[in-house]
């Protein structure tokens, strides 16, 4: 039998089933795969429904213009939180500096719009790329940092960006840059137009993030988060994947920055030179749940809507935000999404167990049977 084994031929082609597989195992494998595919489909339908609702919502009778702007703001925070969750939730690198990437996206957009009257579509891409490039460099610089040191390093980055936009003349410091009204493909965008642009952007990034996290790249990120040595000995290039996570994360937050600049048409060091954005994004990621795909949605909505509903309470909103954060950390350390998803996950697990049991009524073959292949 040894002559059949060797490099790359350790296991026969997947379709053949393999030397140790009997009919029971094959049935079980097929049933498991079908069920898992079903779960995936359920997830996708859920996200699809969410986007569909968001797309038709403006047609509802009671909707007013300000709601579109508010919803766009929520989307911007969701986008930024998606960026943070790739780095913090998936790769395990805590960042308190993503306000810096937001600023890079926003200023790229503002400068391009002011001096070159660039279309929003090009703005979105270039803002994202600018932030992504800086993220890539930052990832390389912070290669050896982890844990609290990484948090401090990224915090330093946010302050660094703040100092730059405050002091370098082209960014016009606290006076800020007034942008011309945003256009997409030559069309002037009203509030709802902008909302749809934001929604479409979020749709694209969500599809991308979903694909990414399910791919071997997402698995490599999570492997580095959970056990760096084991990941490396499995062939995961730490340098490459860390830098990649930084780049993608910065790109997404940079895109959010472009939208954030365009929603007000004005950027200044007063808002972007501060670290509050960075803190808000991190809080959004923690509240939503850093690992879940849906986490950024819940977290982003939380961060924008809580102060909005509590506007009359003025500073009290900040306190309440803190209280909710503590409650979340206490009772749902893996995030609100995890709390909601847990019963469903248990249900699915039971379902999977049942399917596996049904697929193979007989117990798995004994080791001896595995050795004498074909005996079944």
């Amino acid at each position: 039998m040894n002559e059949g084994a060797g490099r790359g031929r350790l296991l026969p082609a997947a379709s053949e089933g393999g030397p140790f597989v009997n009919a029971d195992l094959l049935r079980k494998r097929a049933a498991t795969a079908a069920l898992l595919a079903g779960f995936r489909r359920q997830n996708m339908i859920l996200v699809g429904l969410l986007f569909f609702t968001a797309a038709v919502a403006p047609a509802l009778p009671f909707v007013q213009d300000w709601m579109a702007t508010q919803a766009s703001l929520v989307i911007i925070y969701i986008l930024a939180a998606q960026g943070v969750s790739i780095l913090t939730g998936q790769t395990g690198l805590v960042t308190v500096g993503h306000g810096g990437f937001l600023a890079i996206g926003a200023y790229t957009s503002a400068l391009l719009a002011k001096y070159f009257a660039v279309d929003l579509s090009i703005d979105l891409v270039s803002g994202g790329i600018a932030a992504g490039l800086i993220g890539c460099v930052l990832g390389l610089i912070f290669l050896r940092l982890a844990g609290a040191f990484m948090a401090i390093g990224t915090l330093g980055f946010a302050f660094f960006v703040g100092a730059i936009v405050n002091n370098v003349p082209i960014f016009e410091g606290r006076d800020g840059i007034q942008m011309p009204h945003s256009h997409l493909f030559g069309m002037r965008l009203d509030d709802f137009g902008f909302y749809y642009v934001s929604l479409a952007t979020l749709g694209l990034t969500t599809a991308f993030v979903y694909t990414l996290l399910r791919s071997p790249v997402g698995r490599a990120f999570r492997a580095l988060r959970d056990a760096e040595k084991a990941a490396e000995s499995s062939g995961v290039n730490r340098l490459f994947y860390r830098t990649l996570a930084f780049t993608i994360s910065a790109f997404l937050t940079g895109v959010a920055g472009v939208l954030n600049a365009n929603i007000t048409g004005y950027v200044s060091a007063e808002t972007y030179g501060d670290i509050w954005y960075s803190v808000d994004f991190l809080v959004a990621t923690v509240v939503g749940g850093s690992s879940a795909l849906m986490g950024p949605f819940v977290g982003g909505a939380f961060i924008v809507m809580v102060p909005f509903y509590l506007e009359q309470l003025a500073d009290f909103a900040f306190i309440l935000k803190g209280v909710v954060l503590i409650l979340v950390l206490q009772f749902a350390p893996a995030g609100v999404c995890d709390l909601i998803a847990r019963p469903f996950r248990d249900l699915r697990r039971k379902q999977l167990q049942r399917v596996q049991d049904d697929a193979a009524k007989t117990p798995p073959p004994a080791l001896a049977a595995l050795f004498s292949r074909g005996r079944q």
Partner: protein
Amino acid sequence: MTHISCHGVTVKFGGIVACSDLALSVEEGKIYGLIGPNGAGKTTLFNVLSRFQNCDSGSVYYRGQCIDRKRPHEMVHLGISRTFQNINLFSEQSTLDNILVGAHRLAGSPFANMLALPSARKTQRALLARAHQVAELLRLENHLDIPVRNLPYGHQKRVEMARALASEPEVILLDEPVAGCNSQEVEELKDFVRMINRELGITVLLVEHDMSMVMEVCDYIYVINFGSNLAEGTPAEISRDPKVITAYLGDEE
């Protein structure tokens, strides 16, 4: 054919010499054991062989090629895979995901994967099927969806082995595969190690304290003590070797 060989390997941690002038040679298709009393430098040598540890002098060769400059993640691309002494798994993730990470070498271009290009989809399907095969090989097929931290210890050891196997290595380095296992689990793991070697043709080098495992499973044994080669030979030779007996049990006087 010689798979892994090293000579003159010396590693110092400050003033402590963990390995001094160690040499060993691993031939294709056999099961090798590496034994020695506590603190003999077995794990350090393992880390040198898998490039987690630089050596102060000496060289490691794989198929005649010097691998002293390789980085740890490149080893699995060469065909060398390893497990860890204390279970080192992605504990929050499912068994299947752990095995899939192990198959990372076969995953193809990260950029194609990120965008789910058709070629990547095909590779991913093949990868998934292989992960299932490896799981079935180590009888883990009923635990695929369970986070590994919820599995019994013996199962976790098997997941660790499955992770290392999923990369389809030529050589597998097992660092204390049965440490902390009960006798039944030890028997199972013995069978698995034999199977990996006999059925899959993978060369095995294992560090182990469990003498029944070493004596029954290994074809050839290296004994080290205080960081130096003490003896080598077949299990029968080793169990009679007076130097080895002295090292383990002390002098008669």
